[in-house]
């Protein structure tokens, strides 16, 4: 790499690290680090401490799951990825490096090297989370993880460069990249078709308690076995159970990673213009709005979507913040993603119906397909939908100048994202309930399940979003503000860590409401001389929710005071 770029890389990393260390002078950060170190240290060294992912790398099913996750992550980069390069340059890099006498390959190499910082941190997180899942020493596992994450990063960059080239050159671009585009399209269609056709059989096997075997059999059947082979190759070192196997597996995995490097660094895709445009937009967003603009927002003038609901001139001012945030979210949505999802759902539905031939079975599969994104929205939704303080905190000056109490602003910001998430979950719930009405073998009684979900979903969202917004307020130096969550496969460790910590805190916050709900349900059952059933929990859910919202009221009042005292110097725009 060019000496100047190496210097820039090294100095930036060093100064960044110094900044992070200096932050530990604040007791709040120091305490959080100590608590984290204590927990993760225990996770790593105490064999009795339960780890959510430990052991997942020692089973065939675990191997299949990891392989599938990697396949879908990479495939989604091709199908749903942006037409802009995954190489993100800051405005300063664009202004200083692009006019400099540097080759395109040098710029790409610089970015690839820069991403290694995040990759290495992710490796560290994964090593801790996977802990003693196998017989390998931790450094061998770390090397395996480094190869997996680096390859995935390189592939994402390569894919985005192909997409950029194709998008910027129209049909000529598509012709130039015909080989990778054809391969990926063929693979996606084959996998999609095979999986859809297998859904009824796999579902029956899962219900019969033989899901693992059915999935393994599906993955080892052709053509999936051939398609998944490179992914299997990549993941194999992580699952090796001896030195010998590891050495045998690491070489092909390394070769796979090495093959990606020239593909990416010798790209002829003219990414500069798209990258410079993106950097300028990002810089303007930071300078002018200090970060409300999401990475996804590609809004052309004149294509402004109308607000979902009108804003009356008078009424509670907090509603204005909710209105603004809902508008921001809906305007940043990409229609293309929805179209692809709806089309995919239609194709899957038709294919499954042609396989099973009866409506009840189709409805039953549909329920499962609604339940999966519903659960994902509950767990991952607060990380993806961020139109709250995590966006607006960069505009602290403006928020503070409004004639509202700090707690009112915090509550309105949290309510915005909670409303969006709840609306999406209710939609999936309604769809699942509609399908369940056709399912003669529905596993849970429909009416009480829906009634409980109607109460529980907004409560869960409010709790997890309070945790997320509280983290942003208390640790603005750690939480990425403004431009969405930390993107990219290389940052997977960071995102997993954030989700993990958030889940722990959410679980703690849920303890008291859960206890209250169980007590109420037991009381109701005893009073009605009935066994404890779903209807007792229908009666108990509002009580539990009330306790949860009581907790949140106290926390939000406290966060409001933190909001009023937050030091502007701690808020940094995204790099």
């Amino acid at each position: 790499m060019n000496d100047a770029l190496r210097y820039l890389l090294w100095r930036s990393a060093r100064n960044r690290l110094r900044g992070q260390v200096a932050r530990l002078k604040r007791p709040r950060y120091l305490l959080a680090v100590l608590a984290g170190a204590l927990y993760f240290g225990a996770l790593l060294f105490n064999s009795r401490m339960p780890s959510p992912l430990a052991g997942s790398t020692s089973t065939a099913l675990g191997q299949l799951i990891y392989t599938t996750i990697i396949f879908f992550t990479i495939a989604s980069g091709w199908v749903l990825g942006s037409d802009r390069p995954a190489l993100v340059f800051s405005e300063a890099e664009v202004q200083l490096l692009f006019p400099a006498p540097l080759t395109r390959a040098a710029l790409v190499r610089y970015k690839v090297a820069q991403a290694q910082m995040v990759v290495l941190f992710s490796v560290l997180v994964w090593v801790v989370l996977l802990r003693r899942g196998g017989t390998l020493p931790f450094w061998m596992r770390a090397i395996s993880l480094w190869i997996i994450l680096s390859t995935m990063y390189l592939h994402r960059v390569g894919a985005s460069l192909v997409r950029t080239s194709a998008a910027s050159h129209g049909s000529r671009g598509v012709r130039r990249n015909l080989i990778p585009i054809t391969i990926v399209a063929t693979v996606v269609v084959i996998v999609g078709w095979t999986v859809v056709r297998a859904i009824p059989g796999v579902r029956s096997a899962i219900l019969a308690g033989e899901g693992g075997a059915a999935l393994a059999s599906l993955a080892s059947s052709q053509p999936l076995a051939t398609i998944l082979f490179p992914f299997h190759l990549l993941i194999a070192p992580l699952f090796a159970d001896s030195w010998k196997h590891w050495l045998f597996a690491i070489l092909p995995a390394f070769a796979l990673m090495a093959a990606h490097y020239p593909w990416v660094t010798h790209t002829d895709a003219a990414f500069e213009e798209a990258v410079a445009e993106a950097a300028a937009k990002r810089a303007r967003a930071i300078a002018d709005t200090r970060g409300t603009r999401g990475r996804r927002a590609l809004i052309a003038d004149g294509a402004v979507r109308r607000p979902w609901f009108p804003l009356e001139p008078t009424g509670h001012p907090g509603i204005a913040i909710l209105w603004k945030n809902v508008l921001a979210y809906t305007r940043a949505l990409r229609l293309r993603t929805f179209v692809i999802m709806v089309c995919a759902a239609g194709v899957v539905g038709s294919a499954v119906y042609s396989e099973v031939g009866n409506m009840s079975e189709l409805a039953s599969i549909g329920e499962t397909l609604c339940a999966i994104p519903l659960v994902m929205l509950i767990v991952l939704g607060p990380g993806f939908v961020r139109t709250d303080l995590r966006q607006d905190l960069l505009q602290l000056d403006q928020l503070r100048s409004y004639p509202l109490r700090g707690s009112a602003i915090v509550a309105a910001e949290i309510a915005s994202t909670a409303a969006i998430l709840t609306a999406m979950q209710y939609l999936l719930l309604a769809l699942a309930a509609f399908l369940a009405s056709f399912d003669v073998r529905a596993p849970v009684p429909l009416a009480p399940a829906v009634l409980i979900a109607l109460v529980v979903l907004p409560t869960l969202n409010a709790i997890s979003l309070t945790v997320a917004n509280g983290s942003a307020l208390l640790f603005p130096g750690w939480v990425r503000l403004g431009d969405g969550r930390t993107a990219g496969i290389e940052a997977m460790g960071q995102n997993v860590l954030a989700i993990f910590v958030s889940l722990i805190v959410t679980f703690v916050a849920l303890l008291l409401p859960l206890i209250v709900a169980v007590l109420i349900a037991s009381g109701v059952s005893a009073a009605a001389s009935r066994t404890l059933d779903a209807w007792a929990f229908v009666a108990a859910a509002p009580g539990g929710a009330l306790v949860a919202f009581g907790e949140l009221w106290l926390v939000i009042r406290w966060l409001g005071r933190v909001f009023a005292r937050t030091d502007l110097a701690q808020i940094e725009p995204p790099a």
Partner: protein
Amino acid sequence: MIDVEGLTKTYGDFEAVRGLSFTVAPGEVLGLVGPNGAGKTTTLRSIAGIIVPTSGTVHVGDYDVAKAPERAKALLAFIPDEPQLFEHLTVEEHLRFIGRLYGVSDAPARIEPLLVEMELLDKRGSLPVALSRGMRQKLAIACGLLHSPMALLLDEPLTGLDPAGMRRMKSTIAARARAGAAVVLSSHLLHLVEELCTRLLVMQRGRVIALGTIAEIVAERPDLAGRALEDVFLALIEEGERNDGARASA
């Protein structure tokens, strides 16, 4: 209307503002001038209730900004040097949003004249991404003026405006002052300060080094009589530097 008493703001060992006291009456325009890092923006942010002073009090109207921040903020508008806009709201939606925040019941009727005044009428449906730097500045100012604030705090209000925009902005500020608003204006453009401000507050390293009308300031320094404001300003700063140096060596 604005009453600042003993305002001090420190960051660790660094004193950004030290013991600042001044008042701004309705209809008055106070010019806040000083070199970079003098504490002008910190002063404006403290008055706006954005940052909490280390000591001292700030009153806007009858309200203490620390004790009744919502009531005090409802009376004022702070327009920062970098316009802060919401990327997903159009020009008109920004004004509707602000109208609701400040409870301006006749906001819809006020929006159009304001857009005309700021020459943004044909951009009412545009998102900030489609606006030039100057237009965004005008929109930020329009947001500040919508609720007819009684105290107007402007940090470098002419940044990014073209000559015609600057002239219009100056007349807008003057008109608001004539209508009874107390205006505090921070700027490096001394001709703007000379033209618009009724009084001047010269700051250096967080301290007041001169306060009064230009005539009053010059009256205390007869050697500066008849000199341009720029010369007066530079002489005051130089003197301040000398005094600071003498204090440090003592």
